[in-house]
Every structure is written in C-alpha cells, then in structure tokens.
C-alpha cells in the first residue's frame, strides 16, 4: 500500500508532470487570458523536443545552442500559425493549430525523414551534456519508498525550477497593463481596438510566449527520456487542456496543481486496480485492460469535476455566473 501511495506522490514531482504543467501554463496564457483557442500545444512541445534533439544529434550543437534553436523554431512556428489566422475569428486558430500538430507529427515520423528525425523510432541519447551539468554527487538517495539517482533529482529540480519560473513570469504579465490588454481582447477585441490597441500584435505576442512555454515543456519532457513521435498526437494536447480546465483556465497555479492531480490520479487508479486484480478482489478485468480503464475512471472523475466545480479548482465561481 505504501508503494502505491509512494508512486502517486512520486508522480506529483515527475519531470513529465512538470512538462505537462508548463505546457498548460502556456495555454492558460493563450486561452485563459487572451481567449486564443490553441488546440495544438503538442506541436510546440514537438518543436521543443525535435528542435533540441536534432540540434544535438544531427547538427552536433552543444546544449545551450540546441535550446536556442528550439526556441527560435518555436517563434517561427507561432508566426506560421498566427499570421494567417489571428485576424480571423478564433475558430480558425483552433483548426490550424490542431492540423499543424498532426502534420508535424506525420512529417517527423515518416521513414524518409529517418536520418534527421529518427523516423518512427524517434531519437535518444542527446542529454549527455545535460547530465554532465548535474552538481549532485552520484549515488542513490532514498526516502520512504523512493530510491532516486542523482540524475532523477537533477531532472526534477530543473523541471520544477522552470515551471515555477514561468509561473511567476505569467503571474507578473497578467497583472501588468500588458495583461490588461490581453484580458480585454479575451472579452471583446473590437472594444480593445476602439481604444487604440493593436489587437493583432498582442494576440501574436501571446501566441509566441505561450508557445515558447510549450517548447520549453517539450524539452523538459524529453531530456530524461527519448523523443517518440507517437507522443505528440492530439491526446497530448487534450491532456494538457484537461489539466488546464481541471485547475482553472484563467489562473496561474491551476495548471500546476491540475498536472499534479492528473498524473497522480492516473498512477493511483492504475496501481489500485492492478493490486485489486492481483489479489483477486477485482475479477472482471485483466491486468492488460488496466491501462485503458484508468483513463475511463479519470474521465468520469473529470466529468464529475466539470459538473460540480465547472470553474476548475482555482477558478473564480463568479466568472461562470456572468458568462452564463
């Protein structure tokens, strides 16, 4: 039992959880504060993962130049998505982002792109320089039921440090006059235009900044593991949206807590189910069905949340009264 809860608690602080939290902070800026419907956060994460790993593996760049390549690629991606759509109604951005994410995934996973992107196998072993930066002495660090290597701790510290840094950045931005303009755009862009603000430019800035957060999240996501093209499908984007809505779209902390709850709930349900099956308590499902069933359970949980707390955990109930 300790192990089950130990796993669930461990998931609270996994680098993957951090990556999802940061990607969700990005769409909190897009959707929660600017009203932009970005349904392709997966493409910004993929740009981070591939931009970084290709720079290291294929171009033999160092760690920092590779990060820079990924960030520049992210800005270019934001312009490609934003220039044709941000003058139009919000639905157009939604369609274009969702399509771009899928197109990107198909391109990188084709076998003809194998020499660069690794094709369907993806890429790995691009993090040596990252691990070399780890100041923590080698060894095993044990607490309660956990056993971490120096690398596990380093990856967690860096990922969460970035999440906290970007959360603070977002908090500062949305409380500034710049944040006031983007919130105004979310409410009614013509009104903001009539007050002399260049709405198009603000939307683009928001798209770029939130996209950069997605890109950094994409790098965090792959640093401790490998780049798998299959990870960048629509499911990734929808999990991030789930996390955002779970925590509350127009909040900063919501994305972080949402990601933590999402991942530790997933871990908890699958471990509990698995233990139940092993002990013969649960007889109507088999071990290999658990992976799917836990998503069903989480789905039901989220439905209940949306019914009973539609504004998300941190959201302001008043906002819903007024929008209804």
């Amino acid at each position, binding site marked *: 039992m300790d192990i089950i809860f130990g796993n669930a608690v461990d998931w609270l602080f996994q680098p993957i959880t951090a990556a999802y939290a940061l990607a969700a902070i990005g769409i909190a800026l897009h959707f929660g504060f600017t009203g932009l419907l970005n349904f392709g956060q997966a493409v910004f994460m993929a740009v981070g993962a591939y931009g970084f790993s290709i720079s290291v593996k294929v171009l033999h760049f160092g760690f920092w130049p590779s990060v820079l390549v990924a960030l520049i690629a992210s800005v270019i991606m934001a312009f490609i998505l934003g220039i044709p759509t941000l003058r139009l109604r919000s639905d157009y951005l939604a369609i274009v982002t969702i399509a771009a994410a899928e197109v990107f995934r198909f391109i990188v996973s084709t076998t003809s792109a194998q020499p660069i992107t690794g094709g369907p196998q993806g890429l790995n072993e691009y993090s040596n320089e990252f691990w070399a930066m780890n100041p923590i002495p080698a060894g095993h660090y044990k607490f309660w039921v956990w056993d971490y290597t120096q690398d596990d701790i380093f990856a967690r510290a860096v990922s969460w440090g970035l999440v906290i840094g970007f959360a603070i*950045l977002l908090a*500062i*931005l949305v409380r*500034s*006059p*710049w*944040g*006031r*303009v983007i*919130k*105004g755009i*979310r*409410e*009614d862009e*013509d*009104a*903001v*235009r*009539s*007050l*002399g*603000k*260049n*709405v198009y430019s603000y939307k683009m*800035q928001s798209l770029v*900044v939130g996209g950069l957060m997605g890109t950094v999240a994409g790098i965090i996501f792959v640093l401790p593991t490998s780049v798998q093209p299959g990870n960048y499908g629509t499911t990734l984007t929808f999990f991030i949206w789930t996390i955002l809505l779970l925590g509350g779209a*127009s909040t900063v902390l919501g994305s972080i807590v949402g990601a933590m709850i999402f991942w530790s709930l997933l871990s908890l349900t699958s471990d509990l189910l698995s233990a139940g099956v092993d002990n013969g308590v649960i007889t109507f499902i088999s071990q290999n069905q658990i992976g799917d069933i836990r998503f069903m359970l989480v789905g039901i949980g989220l439905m209940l949340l949306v019914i009973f707390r539609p504004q998300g955990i941190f959201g302001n109930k*008043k*906002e819903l009264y*007024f*929008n209804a």
Partner: protein
Amino acid sequence: MPNDIAKGPATPGCEKVDPILVANNVRRQFGGNVAVDVEHVEIPRGKITALIGPNGAGKTTFFNLLTGFDQPNSGEWSFDGKNLAGVAAYKVSRMGMVRTFQLTKSLNMLTVMENMRLGAQKQPGESLLRALFKPLWRKNEDTITITASELLSRFKLDAKADDFAASLSGGQRKLLEMARALMTKPKLVMLDEPMAGVNPALTQSLLEHIKGLKAEGMTVLFVEHDMHMVRNISDWVIVMAEGKIVAEGPPNEVMKNPAVIDAYLGAHHDSDLGADKIAKGN
C-alpha cells in the same frame, strides 16, 4: 437662422467653415443592399453634431466605415486633414477619433476600473518587455487611475469601480463605455446611441457632460433616436435615410424639413415630427 457652421446654405453635403472630418463618395454594399452611399459630408470642428435617421438608415455602418471597423466598397475620408481610408481601427483611435458601439461592449470580466484604465494611451506597461518591470509603469498607472476615478465619479460609477463590468446594468454599461472612450483623450468622440437605456434622471446630467466635452474643445458626433436630446444639445443635425445624407442644418430647421419628416414617417405626412417627438421628450 444664421449660423457660423456652414459656409453657405445648409444643404445636404454642404461645406463647413472648419471641418474636422470630411468624407467623399463613401459607399458600402451588403450584397444588393446599399447600406451607405454618402456623396459628401463634413463634420464641424468643436461642435456637437447629431446624426439621425430611421432604423436601417446606415448610421452605424457609416460609423464603422469611418473608424476602420468595416471597409467600404469605395470612397475616401480624412480626419484633421489626414487621409483615413484603409487605416486600421486602432490607428484611427490613436489619432484621436474614438467611437462607442450601439451594442455596448463592456469588458465583462474586467473590473470597471480596469475597463477605464484600458482606455488610457501611452502606458509603457502595455509593452511586453516593460510589463515585467513595474517601476517602469507604476507612476503612469497612478496618474491613469486618478483620471479614471474622476471620470467615474462624473458618470456616477465610482461606487462600482471594483466590481466586474458584467455586474453593471445595461444603462451603466453605456455610461462606462462612454467614460472609457474619454480615457483616450480624443479630439472627436463618436457615440452610437449613448442615451439608449439610460434613465431620464441621468440623461439630463449626461447631456451636461456632453456639452462639457464641447467646452473642453472636443468635437462630438452622435447617433440618437431621442429627438429631445438631439434638439437639446446639438449644434448641427445631419439626417440619413437609405444610406444617403438627405438633410442637414441647425436642429430647429431640420426638424421642420419636409424631407426629414418624409424619411422618418414615410406616408404619414399629416403628423408633424418635430412637435410630436419633442413634446414627448419635454
């Protein structure tokens, strides 16, 4: 009645002594329906001009065209001598020509005060990089807040400053929108039905505010169906019908113009427009 506004007689499209806005051949078609077809019109500087006309006359569409919110099929117009055709709406506003909307656009999930602050110009904190450093914009924010508070109390909204705009009544939103537009310190204010839904007690003080804007040197152009208000505060009245300017002149004369009565009342020529409506207003 002699006037110091028009150069010659008050005919539709007549030249003004000192126009701030001049439009030529502005035409906007929606499918086969010609919504606006204004050959020539000039708005006098420093005066209050009313734009009246029956429903569907094209007043709102004309506002949209002039302020860059809609593009005409053809035509050109200039504000303060600067050509405005094809200029983006936000630039028009920065040049000092600000408008309100017939369907009120309050920013619901911002507080009343934030709505007001958003109207301010030249707040350096609105730039992405400077936004990160509060000392660069805190002083401007303080000044903006003082201006906003003054305007809010003028419009009797000061008690609501910290409430969400969504919690305001329809009339209060109209007031907020007008106050917010004034935050931009415009040269020309264009109000689309500012009195619609505002209660009579407040109407009187609003009329005074609008006169006050003129006293401060602003030019006001407003669309209104309330003839009492039109008569009470406007120096000049322009009448639109079916997209065209059909009459112009000082309020008293325009109300007696058969073309105006015709435009408003169609076949019912027997009832007198001016007297009828104005009596109701008083």
